[in-house]
């Protein structure tokens, strides 16, 4: 059973409209790279200079990866990775 990446509506055009992408990988970064291999625009919109872009939050089974090891956070088969845009009121 691979890792499931949940894609929010606003980013679904990056994954051809799919709301979930299942892919293998040992870390969040590897999982994102695997999704990026299939969906060209994905990686550049999610990461920047080896980090998750500002105003995007990434969770593994509900836990913010910034409290773990960021993109190096290990994942196991069956884990759920959620990408959630930050909800700001703005300037």
């Amino acid at each position, binding site marked *: 059973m691979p890792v499931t990446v949940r894609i929010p509506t606003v980013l679904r055009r990056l994954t051809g409209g799919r709301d979930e992408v299942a892919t293998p990988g040992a870390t969040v970064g590897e999982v994102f790279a695997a999704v990026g291999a299939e969906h060209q625009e994905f990686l550049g919109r999610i990461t920047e200079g080896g980090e998750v872009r500002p105003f995007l939050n990434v969770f593994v089974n509900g836990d913010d990866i*910034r409290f773990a090891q960021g993109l190096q956070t290990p994942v196991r088969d069956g884990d759920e990775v959620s990408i959630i845009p930050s909800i700001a*009121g*703005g300037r």
Partner: protein
Amino acid sequence: MAAQAAQAGLEAWIFIPEDLEREKIVATAVYGPKLVRVRGVYDDVNRLCAEVADRFGWGLVNVNLRPFYAEGSKTMGYEIVEQLGWSAPANVVAPMAGGSLVTKLRKAFEEMETYGLAKGTAETKVYGAQASGCGPIIEALHRGDAMVAPVRPRTIAKSLAIGNPADGPFAIQAMKESGGWGEAVTDEEIVAGIRLLAQTEGIFTETAGGVTVAVARKLAQQGKLSREGATVLCITGNGLKTPDAVSGEVDFGPVIDARLSEVVELAEARELAMR
């Protein structure tokens, strides 16, 4: 939110952290919304609500309606200037949770100057206040960072306990660009702030107000608040929402029989103490 929905005849779902103060739960539940208590802190609730909004397409105040709610908080800035007789305060101190309020206060002051409603408001310094048990915006400000690193909240100021503040970077900009600053205070200082405001101004505020008062005190001690012109503290919540924060600290007084002699005794004891 629950009250507005009741008045407007709209169905409302309210998501709250499970351990929110009982007073706040009662004061929400009374309006009859669908209340859902989430195991976790505000950050967990916010994440869940983002997913709920995405899945169901509902309008959630803190998610897809947030720009409107944030713009609405500018009215606090307008009212401050109005109540000061259309003049600009030198300093404004406001609490920060997600960081939206200080951002919008700054915007309100800038707009008032731009549209000629008041003079000097664009120079008003905006100061942010957080609890040190959940002070990610202050920590970033003090480090000189533009972005905010999330923290796990541990403070009695639950209404400010957002460890991953979405508007944090904007709040930092607002404080810096206005020439203001920000500070964080401990739970003990928060309680002392609540008591100070009550005993000097006759206003009972909840923990967030205690944060604001305590931070204003700290900034004044640091010499950061200019004494020229008015300093406004934004007291954003009623003390009856969080009575437990101070109930262990205040004097409940003696219990007596309804006899005059007992009061005479108390009065005599007071006179002795005054000597």
